[in-house]
Structures are given as structure tokens and as C-alpha cells.
């Protein structure tokens, strides 16, 4: 069982239609993704052994996936020995129940959070709210989205779909005043708002980018320093971590701390890297809980081809280079994991309904595979997932018929001849344009945005037979 905010409500083409109509959104996305994309390329270009680093990253993660139970047990033992309490959650509901109970036990009604995909995935904020606990997002972009009553649309830049003046309006509506829409002024308004929250919060909730098995250490990589406040100021820290975040040894971090910042923000090094291991008496949180979340990961692990999606380090490079993401944004994917990685991860973590349309939300152009720091062959997994999906009966029938025809030379030649002949009257009707504007269903989907070409007057094999064989 798995669940939470992974399942799309609308099929991708339907959700995409709505987003495509928003010209402002497309302009915002184009600007933002192209800026990060170019920066990433520059930073990656600086590293002479980038390809070797990618291979190492992929190999370390593959090793982790091949012996995950063993490493998780090792992590639990090390973290426990360092004074943390480790909890296990099979699915979203269980994870939310564990965290909510832990917060309730502290008697507090407000928690501060540092950005964490997995808490989005399990829908933690809603669960806390239902228990009368307010969760304050402290990552600037996440805060913007929360204040707007919206959902994130990008893994790393959740508010990527807004521009500065839209953000200023959102702040104003929520009583955060910024005099101008300059980024420093907006950041200052957020800082004042958050500072009060940090100083009063007794519980912090975090995710983790990595969890080191040999030492029980958790790692958070961030840009703003707000995470560090969440991790050190409250008395109680609850970290919610997907089971695939494990790395075997401390040394392995070396590879990922090079791969992650360059791939995600296009920086040589991220400004803040926080590592903590259990409890340190008299310093930082005195109660530390770690909730290890499965939520569909074990099932994903069982698939030979699909499991590579679990190598993902959530850098978002694949989103920023994806031409489909660039046109429709994250909301069209309907899941907390948007873009190319979402198209392969969401259907695997939770396989039904509208998520089945996600593997088709790609042209298989391969830009994501080239960008991915851990070499996830996203096109390969997309095609693999398309094979397991239910196919529309008319499409299945057509594919079967075409396969039957195309595998036999006589049937194939006859079909080509028939298609060529059938097109003759249409060609005559279209005159010199030689292209068709409207075709009947299902080809009408082609002619909705572009003209269609017509079969030639003579197929190639007819020409060959006529000119070359005698």
C-alpha cells in the first residue's frame, strides 16, 4: 500500500490543457528554467571528471538499492546508539500518524518545517492541521506557496510558477509587508515573519537529503539557512526520511555533495550543509526522532528496470531541461513529483488512475537522461512503464494489425500500395498545397495543430521495383 499526494486527479493531457492556456505561467517557467539550465551547464562544464562522478553516484546508489534492508538496519542501530529514536512507516497514513502522535505528545500547536519532499508526499501538513497543529514552512519558496494556499510546482523551486510581483501580492494578502518587489525586500519581509516563528517553535520537522548508514547521520543541503534554524533551535526534531536516502559510508557523501548543488541550483557548493547524528547533550534538539518511510518504495525496488528511479537525489535538473515541463509546469503532473522524474516515480510509487497517463507525458527526447547526475535512464523507464499500462482497445487493435502487416513483405507491400492509392483523391482535392488540414478521428488529433503530409504518388519499393530490378 502506498498513498498520499502522489496520485494525480486528472489525466495529464487534461491537466496540461488548463496550464497551457496560462501565458503568464509559460513565460515565468521559461525564464526560470532557462536561467537555471544555463547555470547548471556552466558549472558542470567546470568539472573535468563530471561523467566519472555521475557514474560513481549511480554505482553507489545501485549498491544501496541492492542491499537496502541490511543498510537500513545498520542505520537504525547507529542512529539509536547516538540517541535518536527510529520509527518505521509502511505508507503515508502510517507515517502521518507517527509524526502527528509525536508532535501531540510535546503539547505544542505549531511546528516549523524545513523543506522536505517526503512530508509533501505523505500529506503531513493536512494531517497535522486535522490534529489542530499548524505547520509553518520555512523555506522561502515553500512559504510563498503555503501563503498562497497553493501546492508546489517544482522540486527545488516550489514557487517557480510565480514572478516577483505576484509574490509581493501574496505577501500583502497575508500581512507580510514588502515595500518593493525586489528580491531582497521580499526576502527581508519573509525573514521578519519567520524569525518570530523560529524563536517560539518547540518542534522542528525536517526531511533529509542523505542518511549515512555507518554513523546514523542525517544530512540536509540548503541555500537559505532557514533549515539550520529548524534543525538547531527547537527542543524536539522529527526527521521524515524516505528509505532510499541511505548512503553506506560517510565518504560517499563526497560524491553527492559535488553532484547535487551543481545539478540543482548550478552552484559549486550549496551555502548550508547540515549534518547531525542523534542527540548532543546541551546542544541542539534534545529529543530526536527519525521516521523511515516506505510508501511504495519496496514495490518499486522489485522492478528490475524501474528501480533506478530510486537513485534520484531530487536535484530537479531533469525538470529544468524538460521541454514538456517547460510548457505546462508542475501542476499538470498532478503529483508532488513533477517533470520527468515524476513521470516515472509517481506511477511506480502509486500506480493507478490518472498516474497511468504520466509515462506518456514525454517525447522521449532524452534531455533528462543527459542531465541526471545519477544517470537515471528516464526514457527507458518511461517506455518500460508504457508496456505495463492498459492500452485503449482501438489503439491496441491498430497496433496489432500494423504489426501483422509490417512483418510480412507481401502484406506490407500491398498495404503501402493501398494507402498510396487511397490518398490519390485527397491529393487531387488538396491541389498544390499537398498537405491536409483536417483528418477524421483519431488523426484529427494530428491536424488539430499541424497539417498532415500525404502518401507519395509512388512508394519507394514501387520505384525500386520499377527502376532497379530487371
Amino acid at each position, binding site marked *: 500500500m502506498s498513498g498520499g499526494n502522489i496520485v494525480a486527479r486528472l489525466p495529464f493531457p487534461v491537466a496540461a490543457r488548463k496550464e497551457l492556456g496560462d501565458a503568464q505561467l509559460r513565460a515565468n517557467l521559461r525564464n526560470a528554467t532557462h536561467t537555471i539550465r544555463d547555470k547548471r551547464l556552466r558549472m558542470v562544464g567546470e568539472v573535468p571528471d563530471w561523467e566519472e562522478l555521475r557514474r560513481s553516484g549511480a554505482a553507489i546508489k545501485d549498491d544501496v538499492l541492492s542491499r537496502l534492508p541490511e543498510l537500513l538496519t545498520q542505520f537504525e542501530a547507529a542512529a539509536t546508539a547516538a540517541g535518536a529514536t527510529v520509527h518505521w512507516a509502511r505508507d503515508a497514513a502510517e507515517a502521518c500518524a507517527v509524526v502527528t502522535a509525536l508532535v501531540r505528545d510535546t503539547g505544542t500547536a505549531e511546528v516549523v518545517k524545513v523543506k522536505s519532499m517526503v512530508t509533501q508526499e505523505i500529506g503531513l501538513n493536512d494531517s497535522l492541521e486535522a490534529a489542530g497543529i499548524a505547520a509553518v514552512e520555512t523555506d522561502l519558496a515553500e512559504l510563498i506557496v503555503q501563503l498562497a494556499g497553493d501546492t508546489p510546482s517544482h522540486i527545488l523551486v516550489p514557487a517557480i510558477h510565480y514572478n516577483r510581483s505576484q509574490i509581493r501580492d501574496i505577501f500583502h494578502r497575508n500581512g507580510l509587508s514588502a515595500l518593493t518587489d525586489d528580491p531582497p525586500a521580499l526576502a527581508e519581509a519573509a525573514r521578519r515573519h519567520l524569525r518570530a516563528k523560529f524563536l517560539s517553535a518547540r518542534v522542528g520537522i525536517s526531511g533529509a537529503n542523505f542518511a549515512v548508514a555507518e554513523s546514523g547521520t542525517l544530512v540536509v543541503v540548503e541555500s537559505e539557512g532557514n533549515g539550520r534554524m529548524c534543525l538547531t533551535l527547537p527542543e524536539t526534531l522529527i526527521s521524515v526520511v524516505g528509505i532510499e536516502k541511505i548512503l553506506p559510508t560517510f565518504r560517499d557523501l563526497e560524491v553527492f555533495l559535488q553532484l547535487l548543488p551543481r545539478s540543482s541550483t548550478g552552484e559549486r557548493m550549496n551555502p548550508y550543509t547540515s549534518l547531525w547524528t542523534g542527540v548532543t547533550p546541551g546542544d541542539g534538539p534534545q529529543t530526536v526522532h527519525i521516521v523511515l518511510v516506505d510508501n511504495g518504495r519496496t514495490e518499486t525496488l522489485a522492478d528490475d528496470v524501474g528501480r533506478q528511479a530510486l537513485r534520484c537525489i531530487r536535484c530537479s535538473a531533469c525538470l529544468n531541461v524538460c521541454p514538456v515541463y517547460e510548457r505546462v509546469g508542475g501542476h499538470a503532473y498532478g503529483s508532488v513529483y513533477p517533470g520527468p522524474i515524476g513521470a516515472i516515480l509517481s506511477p511506480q510509487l502509486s500506480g493507478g488512475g490518472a498516474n497511468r497517463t504520466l509515462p506518456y507525458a514525454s517525447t522521449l527526447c532524452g534531455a533528462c537522461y543527459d542531465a541526471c547526475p545519477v544517470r537515471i535512464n528516464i526514457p527507458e523507464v518511461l517506455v518500460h512503464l508504457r508496456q505495463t499500462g492498459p492500452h485503449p482497445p482501438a489503439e491496441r487493435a491498430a497496433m496489432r494489425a500494423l504489426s501483422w502487416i509490417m512483418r510480412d513483405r507481401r502484406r*506490407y507491400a500491398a498495404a503501402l500500395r493501398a494507402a498510396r492509392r487511397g490518398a490519390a483523391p485527397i491529393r487531387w482535392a488538396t491541389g498544390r498545397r499537398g498537405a491536409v488540414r483536417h483528418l477524421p478521428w483519431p488523426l484529427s488529433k494530428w491536424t488539430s495543430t499541424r497539417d498532415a503530409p500525404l502518401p507519395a504518388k509512388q512508394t519507394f519499393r514501387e520505384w525500386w521495383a520499377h527502376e532497379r530490378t530487371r
Partner: protein
Amino acid sequence: MKVALFVTCVNDLVFPGTGRAVVEVLERLGHTVEFPVEQGCCGQMHANSGYREEALPLVANFVKTFDGYDAVVGPSGSCVAMVRDWYPKLAPDSGEVVARTYELSEFLVDVLGVTDVGATFPHRVTYHPTCHGLRMLRLGDRPRRLLESVRGLELLDLPGAEECCGFGGTFAMKNAGVSGAMLADKCRSIVDTGAEYVAAVDNSCLAHIGGGLSRAGGPAKPIHYAEILAAS
């Protein structure tokens, strides 16, 4: 060398001129081309759309048809990528023919060592590198080098050249809206170059781009680069 032409199904039915152009270029360079009539479709449409079972007989037919040739040359980045990238995964016994299947530019530049094929085409041309040629086959600048050696041809840079045109096989129909948005951007870049022709290594992408240009009424025309190389 015993060279077989793999013409691809789209070329056979809709763009036979591309197949004729490959024959013309290879013969001009002194090679004998054979066209094994047993050939059908490579199975890309089936495999990429999730119909593995339906693709397998087509894969088997390809392997059987082209086994025994020194080289198989196809004027399509995506069909050749299907053979080279996917066949070993779909059918582990697909054999050596996979490694001997070349996209035209690879065959000309790498195997024959030729960049000037003796063509003349006095026009302004821009080149769109299609995704499978670019990222699966890693054709690199081979097609551009061939075009640059054509007499009279003025090669114009295409801004955002490496961005997908939005075709993607059945994607163009299943996600027609997104496909159309990507196409619109690609067509705008092409028209802005002021080129008379947009060339590419794949007629399927060109059919999509050409359909967009024709709908928008732009002056640029799609052309398969093999047809430029065959022009004299």
C-alpha cells in the same frame, strides 16, 4: 562493400524521395546499394508506445532481412537508434547486424571517411538536430559537416536547436496540446533564421515541423538532409 538500404516505413510510403536520395549519394561515391524487399518497419512505434509483444516480430524480421550485409544504412536517426539502442534490450539475440546499422551521416563520415559528397544546393538552410540523432546516436556535428561541404549552401544557426520539436511519435496525438506548443516555438525559431529550408535527419520530425510551418504559412520548407546531399 555490400551496403543495404534500410528505407524505414515513413520514407517508403510518404517520403520515397529520401530513399532515392540515399541511393543517389552512395552510388555517386561508387558503392552498390541493395534494397532487400523483405524489410518492413523497425518496430519503433510499437516499442515506444508500449507494445513490446507487437514489436518483437518486426525486430526479428529486421534482423533476418539484414543479416549478412556489411553495412545497413538508414536515413533516420530515430529508426537507427531503435535498432542500436533498443534491439539488444528487446531481443538479446539480435546479433551483429545491430552494430553494423548506421545512420547515413555516420556511414558517410565514419565508415567511408567522406564529408564532401559532391553536392550543390544554392540555398539558405538551417539544421534541426533531432533528439534521437542527437542524444541516442550522438551524431554530433556529422550532418552539419556534410551540409557545410555542399556547394552554394549557406548554413544558418538555429537558436535553441537542441530543443525537441514536440513530435515524439504518438506523443503528437496523445498530448496534442503540449506537442503543438513545442512545435510553435520551434517553428518561430526556424522562421526567424530567414532560412528557405529546414533540414533534419528524420522525416517524421520534419513531417511534424513541416505541418506546423505549412499551417502557419511560413516560407521555410522542410527537407531531409539526404535530399540536399543528392542535389547537384
